[in-house]
Every structure is written in structure tokens, then in C-alpha cells.
């Protein structure tokens, strides 16, 4: 293997893009996110059963396809491009936590359901004072005999108001040397209250989840949770690359079609070069995100520098492209009806998730020993 997607992966990407553009165009996304649940259950059923997406990366023994992480990154790039609202990303990250930290028992309990799409899982780690949610936590686990309860508040939990199962980080006496450990909480557990949040990003439902002595089960042994953040950054970068590409497509199409002064506006260098800058940034971010995902897929130690780097590059490419797209579109890009602002909101939301570009570069500098 060298540094490219193989033909099967490219074909998978193309068919997924067709599927999403047929089945979940942006007007459908708007309708789905406006429901209480925030996604289209029938679409999710098709993504699960027809396309087998949630189980792609899961071991075959648990009902998955055993692909590794590259195919999921393609799913994220395409759902990022289409702004698809579905619990795919939430389940992917939760299942990666289960794969990495879960006991054999919890893997057997959770993964088949996730793989089939029947069990909607999500990662509930972020807190107001801890964006990455793997250190400095206030949510606390208390053991009494064999039973564990959690108390605390989690924010920005993707699909947290509807998920069947939540993988929650918490501190406490049993959290081990890093001060954080993962627990599994059922969506119908007592003491669990969850509310969908009014979010900047309109197309990704997130919830606040409050746990009040809520029963939980330790996912496995304690361990350093920071690799989860790196995985999250790498995969989020892929999603952002998809969104950046969608912005550029939108701006370019408009610049070809829109005439002012009896010329298509894309023939003016002010517009043309702005689009060119979007492609330059996209191309770099895409290379970085792809490399980060490949590194994650191989479990390479490079991930610790490459994931934050990719997240910073993708964040700056996406926020800049989304802003440029609004600018190229002019007035129409400033309306609610046009889809540009959905990307603009997603770009800024994604950039802040798990820490913004400056925070990511600080992690890079740390990892380089600067």
C-alpha cells in the first residue's frame, strides 16, 4: 500500500455520495434536524442495513466488516459533505472507545447492536470545563460494592437525547492514574436526564446529559484516554474536509452561474483567486486528514502529532472556506434559505470541538518537544 485510497474505497465513496445525494439532500437534512429526534430514522435504517455503515470497522465476530478506519473516514467525509444528520459519527466514536478500552464482555454486549444500527451509542465525555473530556473532569464515579453510579453533567453529547447507550468519562477513586475512566450508561437509566441543546450547528443534534447517581458499568480497566482524542481529531478532520469541499463546490457553481457586469463573477480575479485559495487550503487539509486517518488506522505513534495538526489545518480550511463561500454568494449566501450558513455553522462548531486550532497547535508543539 502507498498513500492513496484504493479502487474499492473510491467506489465505496462514489456510491455513498450518490446514496446521500439521492436520499438525503439538504432539504431533507433540514426536515430531519427539525424533528425532536433530530435525524431521519428511516435513513439511518438504510445506512445500517442496506449499506452496513455502522459496523464497517467492527470485527466480523461482532457483526462488522472489519475494514479498519479508512472506510469510516470516507463515510465521515461524505456525511460531512452532505451534512447528513445521523448517529453514525456518535456510534463510531463510542464503538472505538469500546474496542480500545472495553472488556471482552462489554464488547460482546455492545458491538453487535452498534454494528447492526439497532443500538444507537454515543460518547459523552465533554464538560463545560473540559472540551476533550478525558481529563480535569467533574463527573464522578462512586462505587458501592459491585455497583457504580455517576454524577455530573456532560455537554455536546451528539444525539445524547436519544442514544440507547452512552459511554461516559468520569473521575473517581477507581479512575486510575490518569484520573479518567469510561463507563457505560443505559439511555433509560434512573437519574439520567438529557435535553437537546439549542446549538450553533443546526444539523448535528447535541444534548446536555445530567447524571444524578446514575447506575453505570465500567467499560473496562482504567487507562489513558487521550488516544480517543487523537482518534476523534483525525476522524473529525475527515468530516471537515468533506464540508470544505462542499463549500468550494457551492462557491464555484455560483461563480460560474452568477453574472454581474455582463460577465460571470467567477471570471473576476477577486472571486477566482478566492476560490483558488479555498482549493489550496482544502488540498492541504485533505492530505493532512488522510494521513492522520491512515496513521490512526495503523496505530502509528505519529498520530499524536498528526491528529492535532490535521484538526488545525482542517479547521482553518473549513472556517475560511465557509466564510469565503458566503462572501462569493453575496446577499443570497446570507439568507436562512440558502444552505451556505449550515456549512458556516458546522465549520465553526467543528473547529471548536475538542479544542480550536491554536489549542491543537499547542498540542503539536508539546508533542514536538518545543
Amino acid at each position, binding site marked *: 500500500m502507498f498513500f492513496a485510497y484504493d479502487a474499492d474505497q473510491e467506489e465505496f465513496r462514489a456510491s455513498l455520495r450518490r446514496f446521500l445525494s439521492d436520499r438525503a439532500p439538504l432539504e431533507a437534512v433540514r426536515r430531519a434536524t427539525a424533528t425532536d429526534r433530530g435525524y431521519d430514522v428511516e435513513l439511518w435504517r438504510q445506512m445500517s442495513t442496506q449499506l452496513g455503515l455502522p459496523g464497517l470497522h467492527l470485527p466480523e465476530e461482532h457483526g462488522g466488516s472489519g475494514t479498519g478506519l479508512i472506510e469510516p473516514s470516507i463515510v465521515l467525509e461524505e456525511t460531512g459533505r452532505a451534512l447528513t444528520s445521523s448517529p453514525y459519527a456518535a456510534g463510531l466514536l463510542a464503538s472505538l472507545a469500546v474496542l480500545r478500552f472495553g472488556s471482552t464482555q462489554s464488547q460482546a454486549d455492545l458491538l453487535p447492536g452498534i454494528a447492526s444500527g439497532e443500538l444507537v451509542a454515543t460518547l459523552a465525555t465533554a464538560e463545560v470545563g473540559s472540551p476533550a473530556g478525558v481529563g480535569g473532569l467533574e463527573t464522578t464515579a462512586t462505587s458501592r460494592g459491585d455497583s457504580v453510579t455517576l454524577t455530573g453533567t456532560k455537554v*455536546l453529547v451528539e444525539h445524547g437525547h436519544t442514544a440507547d447507550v452512552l459511554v461516559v468519562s468520569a473521575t473517581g477513586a477507581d479512575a486510575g492514574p490518569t484520573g479518567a475512566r469510561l463507563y457505560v450508561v443505559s439511555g433509560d437509566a434512573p437519574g439520567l436526564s438529557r435535553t437537546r441543546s439549542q446549538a*450553533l450547528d443546526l444539523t448535528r443534534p447535541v444534548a446536555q446529559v445530567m447524571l444524578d447517581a446514575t447506575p453505570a458499568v465500567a467499560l473496562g480497566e482504567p487507562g489513558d484516554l487521550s488516544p480517543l482524542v487523537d482518534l476523534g481529531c483525525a476522524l473529525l478532520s475527515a468530516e471537515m474536509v468533506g464540508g470544505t469541499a462542499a463549500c468550494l463546490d457551492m462557491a464555484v457553481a455560483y461563480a460560474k452561474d452568477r*453574472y454581474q457586469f455582463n460577465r460571470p463573477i467567477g471570471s473576476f480575479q477577486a472571486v477566482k483567486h478566492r476560490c483558488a485559495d479555498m482549493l489550496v487550503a482544502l488540498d492541504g487539509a485533505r492530505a493532512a486528514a488522510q494521513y492522520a486517518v491512515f496513521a490512526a488506522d495503523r496505530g502509528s505513534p505519529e498520530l499524536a502529532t498528526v491528529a492535532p495538526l490535521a484538526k488545525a489545518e482542517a479547521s482553518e480550511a473549513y472556517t475560511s472556506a465557509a466564510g469565503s463561500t458566503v462572501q462569493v454568494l453575496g446577499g443570497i449566501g446570507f439568507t436562512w434559505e440558502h444552505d*451556505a450558513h449550515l456549512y458556516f455553522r458546522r465549520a465553526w462548531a467543528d473547529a471548536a470541538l475538542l479544542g480550536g486550532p491554536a489549542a491543537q497547535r499547542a498540542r503539536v508543539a508539546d508533542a514536538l518537544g518545543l
Partner: protein
Amino acid sequence: MDVDYPPSAQEFRSRVKAFLGEHLPADWTGMGGLPEDEREAFRVQWRRTLGEHSMLAVSWPEQYGGAGLSLVEQVVLAEEFALAGAPQGSENDSFGIGMLGNTLIHLGTEEQKAHYLPKILSGEQRWCQGYSEPEAGSDLAGIRTSAVLDGDEWVINGQKTWTSAGHLADHIFLLARTDADAPKHRGITFLLVPMEQPGVEVRPIRNLAGYSLFNEVFFTDARTARSEVVGEVNDGWRVAMALLGFERGVTATTDAIRFRAELDRLFALARERGLTSDARVRDRLAWCHSRVEVMRFRGLQALTRSLAGQRPGPESAISKIIWSEYAQAYTELAMEILGPEALVPSGQRTGGLLQMPEAGTENSPLSWVETFLAARAGTIYAGSSQIQRNIIGEVLLGLPKEPRLDAGPFRELAASRSSQARG
């Protein structure tokens, strides 16, 4: 350094301060400090107070019911109102009093002045502006809305867009094409049109933050009297350009005041989040301060020129670039300071921002997110940044224009565009 305003202006400033102290509510912090459901009532009441104290049409000569203030007095008044966060009138007044009123005073007939000025001042008529069209944005002279004489009336067909406060207005001044055989800038007429007639329909446009502050206005065989032309028929482009100049200069110094208030809010936000010791944030905050100071210094220069009798000109393109790009930069910094807080922002909805929050608005994450979203418009409306850079390059620096593809009769341009679009 305190730049010296003339003593008479400083004396006037004291009077304005006294007026504001006397008439604003005791706990006044700005419109943003009022509960949302009290704002409209306050506006109505406040406009009445302003009218009673000759502080409404401050730029009009007294003979037309204005305050007859000198330029420097107008500036001082605007500054003190901005510092106090007090509005200078209703949302329609900037169009009725500021734009149309001054245009009529300079270019209107005696009949037009006698008819319209009192109605504008009393609030009996509420005006809006009909310039932009879906196909005429940056290329404003490419308007297609037509006006054709039918006996003693113009018959108007077409569509205007981005009409702010259009839903609150009952009259519109607009540009219409009256000679499609002339080159594009030469066949346009400036018309006054009543909106309460069957041929006029107003539809709100919802902006990206979810608020309806602008409108589309549709004309279907709408009518206005033949005499409702300002300036000459087919000379409307010149009238529209002249209009742009009438209010400039007065606001030279208020931008900096309003951005200063915003920056104070941002400093407070950064302090609350404990980020002023972060060297990156600290550097960016000092940079923001520098930009606002540059606006203040440039405002003082512009005002000095205005007081020396120079008309404001194309250098306003520089101001537009500076403030509109700064507005994006400082709100992006606010987003960085907020971090994940911006994703589920707490606070009250602002009710919709044209540019920045009203004074007195709470310093909440949601107020910042809405300011951040609103800031995207500044580089688009009233001449996009691309257009401003063309003006700076061509008018201020004398650089050559691009090859033009839009000379010749407008009718042919419109036809060629249609065939290109098909092709």
C-alpha cells in the same frame, strides 16, 4: 491628547448630555438593556421626545422643520447618542429623514419639499429604499425594474430586494429603468412610490441568523404619479449617487465609539474567561484595540476635512474595508475566546442585528454568536469588499479599469445575458 472640538461644539455637547440625562430612563444602559417587549414602545415615545426637542431631523434646515444644526453639532449629537446607546429615531428615519429628506432638500421641487418633508418628520410617512435587485447586486446599474409612462402615471414592474425596514414602511424611493435603449447608467429614474396599493407586495427575507430584517418588494403594475420623479427622468443614477453623500461625514466618529463599546465587552469576556494572560489572545486583543483606535483617528481626520468644507468622497471605501473586515476579525476572536461555549451558547436572543448589538445588551455567549453571524454581512452589503477594492484601486489610485463587457444599450446586455445563461 484630546483633539480639540470648537468651544461652541463642546458647549453644545454639554446640552446634549444634559438632554440625554434628563430624558433617558434612570437605569438606562442602552436599547439592549430594555426587555424586548418594551423596546417598540420606548422607540415610539423616544421619537416623540426627540421631535419635541428638535433633535430629530438634525441635518435639515430649520425652515423645513429640522434642527438646522451645523455639521459639528450634528457630529457631537451623534457621538453623544452613540455613547449613551440612544437611538436617533426610528428604523425608517435613516431612509426618510437621512437619505430622502436631504435628497429632496437638495434636488427636490418646492412641491415635493412642501408635500413630503412634514410627513417624514411627523412620522406620518415611513420610508424605505428600493435599489438592489436579484440580478443587480454589485452591478447596481444593472437594475431591471421598469417604469413606463401611462398617461399621468408611471407603471412599475419588477422586484427589489434587501429592502431593510421595508415591512415597516408605507413609501419607497426606488430606481427604475425608464429607457432600456440607453447605456445602463443613463436610462434610470429615481421615483417616489406609495406602497399601500395592490401592485406592491412585501415579503420578508430571513437572514442566516434566523431574523427577518430585510425584505423583497414585488411590483406588479404598481403606479405612481408622473410628477413623483426626483431630479430628471433618466438621470436617477446621479440622484442616487448624490444621495449617498448627504449623510456621510456625520457618522465619521461614531463607528469608533460603537466598536469601542464592543471591544470593552470583548475585553470583559476575555477577563471573565481568564484569557488575558494568554499571549496569543493578548496580542489579538491589543490588535483589536489598534484597529478601533485607527477608526477613531481616521474618523477625526474625516471630520476635520468635512468641517473644512471638503465633501466626503471615495476614501469612504477605505473605511468600509476597515470596519467590515475588523467586524469579522473581532467576532472570530470572540468565538475563539468562547471556545466550546459558542457551540451551545447561553443567553437571550438579540432580536436580530444589522451589525452589532444595541448598547446595554448582555455580554452572553449567544450575543457574541449572533454578532459573529451578523458580521458576515458587512463585507457584502452597501458595496462588497471586492467592489470597495475596485473603487480604491481605480478612483483613489488611478489604476486602469478592467475591459468592460457592459457598454452599449441596456436592452442588448439583458438579451446577451439571457442567451449566455441558456448557452
